[in-house]
């Protein structure tokens, strides 16, 4: 522990080894069997259950909980995986408080929903820990499909295609598959290399060949893909980030939150990750919260999330905001950055208060400064370079139906495509549905 929380600048090793261990352990530890039994018993087995309706992948939640109740958690897992092959990761990262658990009738009745996410994890862990893969491939069709991007949408699409007997080449720009599951989410939400284990488990279906280090514009083109394959699915995510429009953002100590999170996700030893004594995160979404909370967990003395609008406008859910608050992160609302001060390296960030008027958001003219030796930008991601033949809409790949793009035999889904929230679970649903549509189109 060479440094402390008080050490100025961006430093690593601010905490003891035990503190790192504690801070980056599982956010929601897995249920013991007794806990799962008690939690499962609370489910009312609703008719046409609101939780299932709220789930982007339509998991039959009352059914899988009943299967846990009756002592068959592996059957519960099959119910989950048949709708959502990344049910294990979704159990960890889904914002259940704004999806299934928000509409649970026991949330309505008692303010305490059935803990669906943790029950889903209980079931999926059971099956995955057994090493078994519950699905097998249909007779091989001889059709070949290219799936670009091995994130949630691409993995889901590839798995479903393979189940239907198609051969899949799964490409990813990074050195390993997983996408945001592997590189994008807070470390404490998915510990012990789960994302990589999940990919390995998923690939047990067979028929999927992973090719890393390749992306559109990086060895792949739409022309060449549509010629070589019967169909193409784009699950390329959002590779770019929005630029922060404030004076001085080119100073040292200013970086993108997604890179910070990605570095953390891949780190073997948290004590090697440098973090500022005073960290300011700009933004209001999940990425802002993930970056801010993890800065605090790495030993920052002061961490502030600054958002230009009010809390109710934040992309981060109430649960995420509470998580940030409980970690000791200050959430500053109605403040927009105007200038980054410092002599080559950030020292202070100057903000202007904002107010929402009938003409929209505007600065009030009143400014203040926050000390900062690290500034993380989390103001949204954008689609990276895309082939010009693909029609975009609102900065995303325009799709109709189950992910059909403007180019024949090319589908898209996940964060890169229009429609749905930018969530892991939404990507899984879109990948799966596109696969079904591709299958229909190939076999039709």
């Amino acid at each position: 522990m060479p440094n402390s929380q008080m050490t100025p600048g961006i430093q690593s090793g601010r905490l003891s080894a035990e503190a790192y261990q504690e801070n980056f352990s599982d956010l929601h530890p897995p249920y013991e069997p007794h806990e799962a039994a008690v939690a499962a018993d609370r489910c009312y087995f609703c008719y046409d259950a609101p939780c299932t309706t709220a789930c982007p992948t339509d998991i039959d939640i009352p059914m899988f909980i009943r299967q846990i109740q009756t002592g068959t958690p592996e059957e519960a897992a099959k119910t989950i995986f048949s709708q959502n092959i990344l049910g294990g990761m979704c159990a960890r990262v889904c914002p259940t408080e704004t999806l299934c658990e928000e509409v649970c009738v026991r949330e309505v009745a008692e303010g305490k929903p059935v803990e669906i996410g943790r029950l889903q994890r209980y079931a999926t862990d059971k099956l995955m820990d057994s090493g078994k893969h519950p699905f097998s491939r249909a007779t091989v069709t001889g059709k070949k499909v290219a799936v670009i991007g091995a994130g949630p949408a691409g993995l889901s699409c590839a798995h479903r295609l393979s189940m239907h007997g198609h051969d899949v080449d799964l490409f990813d720009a990074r050195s390993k598959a997983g996408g945001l599951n592997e590189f994008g989410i807070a470390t404490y939400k998915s510990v012990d290399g789960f994302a990589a284990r999940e990919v390995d488990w998923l690939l047990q279906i067979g028929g999927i060949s992973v090719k890393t280090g390749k992306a559109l514009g990086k060895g792949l083109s739409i022309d060449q893909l549509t010629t070589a394959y019967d169909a193409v699915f784009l699950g390329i995510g959002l590779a770019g980030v929005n630029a922060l429009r404030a004076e001085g953002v080119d100073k040292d100590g200013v970086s993108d939150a997604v890179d910070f999170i990605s570095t953390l996700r891949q780190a073997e030893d948290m004590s090697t990750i440098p973090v500022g004594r005073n960290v300011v995160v700009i933004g209001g979404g999940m990425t802002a919260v993930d970056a801010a909370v993890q800065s605090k967990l790495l030993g920052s003395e002061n961490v502030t999330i600054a958002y230009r609008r009010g809390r109710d406008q934040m992309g981060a859910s109430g649960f995420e905001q509470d998580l940030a608050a409980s970690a000791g992160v200050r959430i500053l609302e109605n403040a927009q950055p105007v200038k980054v001060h410092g002599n080559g390296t950030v020292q202070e960030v100057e903000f202007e208060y904002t107010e929402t008027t009938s003409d929209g958001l505007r600065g009030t003219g009143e400014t203040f400064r926050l000390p900062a030796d690290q500034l993380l930008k989390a103001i949204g991601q954008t689609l990276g370079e895309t082939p010009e033949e693909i029609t975009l809409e609102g900065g995303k790949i325009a799709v109709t139906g189950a992910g059909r793009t403007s180019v024949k035999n090319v589908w898209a889904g996940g964060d890169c495509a229009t429609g749905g929230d930018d969530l892991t679970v939404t990507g899984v649903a879109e990948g799966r549905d596109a696969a079904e549509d591709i299958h229909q189109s190939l076999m039709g």
Partner: protein
Amino acid sequence: MADISANFLGIKSPNPFWLASAPPTDKEYNVRRAFEAGWGGVVWKTLGSEGPPVVNVNGPRYGAIYGADRRLLGLNNIELITDRPLQTNLREIKAVKRDYPDRAMIVSLMVPCEEAAWKAILPVVEETGADGIELNFGCPHGMAERGMGSAVGQVPEYIEMVARWCKQNTRMPVIVKLTPNITDIRRPAEAAKRGGADAVSLINTINSITSVNLDAMSPEPMIDGKGTHGGYCGPAVKPIAMNMVAEIARNPETAGLPISGIGGVTTWRDAAEFMALGCGNVQVCTAVMTYGFKIVQEMCSGLSAWMDEKGYSSVDDFVGKAVPNVTDWQYLNLNYIAKAKIDQDACISCGRCYAACEDTSHQAISMSEDRVFEVMDDECVACNLCVDVCPIENCITMEPMQPGQTDPRTGEKVPSEYSNWTTHPNNPSAVSEPTLGG
């Protein structure tokens, strides 16, 4: 404040809550703890004749079924009568009774079906100062194979004979404990009365297999790979017990025969229900085996508070009060028409009422796109299933229609007069004026 003390056959106890003859009353240590906790009386676990004590199995004696959250709903057992020497039990009964003179001390007995055996045991029990005896004609396992317990209780003539022997050979009040493992509970109760018994107590446990071990393919509790039926008790048997109590209470042959109610009594409310059906007191076993003796405090406070609320000053004010309202189906008012009503403010939209009604009943509940569930009065037959499956208390209620209103299901006006099956045109044996039943 209401007086909850009870006087059953002249046996007084500070409250109407006795512990039934069972493991909790097998020895001095337990019974002292029970009395310290506040139990009004005990029925000491069944004594057998002098001689080598009975033996028990050395594997599991109990099996259970559960509700949500592993709440124990039913328990069965294959334990026999006391396996301790007769003299030890007698000595302990005497000591406890001496120290707790205000509590009821009943001794349960089961000896061979010979007059000499009863003649031998009655004086030694009397000598302990016990307040009464209960004849165990109910135990359905083990002892029944040896001609005792329910083997006696299933033959009314034996009941009458043994009851008579006891009445002739002791001054102590005699309670006959009945087995439910028969077709018509009224017959053994009548036999007990003919034999001179002062009271009946019921029910004893019900023949049961609570579970099957699907690996060993054996009933449970499993003893070295095999199982046998046990006696079932606990909350799950309460409805069966209350029906049998009511049948005896309203049977002209046995009306007025004191009854000690047994079978799943767990709360003050259960006790009040048994007593309303004619029981002068109740006996409890499974509830204390699940939660310990302390629950008697809730039973006392709850019964007392309810009696205050209802204006009952003593238990005699309400014992048997529901008996006149227990009748036969044929006397139920067919002109009484109710409709289910869903309180939309209380509804949490789980849809269980809809699933139950739509899948299994009368398709009388509608479901809207936004999950509003409403009763369709023109289909509702007021079966009550929706009320029973709703997880929210009082969310769905049965609202009676008023005479003169039109029932949208039949299009007919609700008649104001009472009418039952006895005069119904569809009844081949219909009579012109309705009879009201007993």
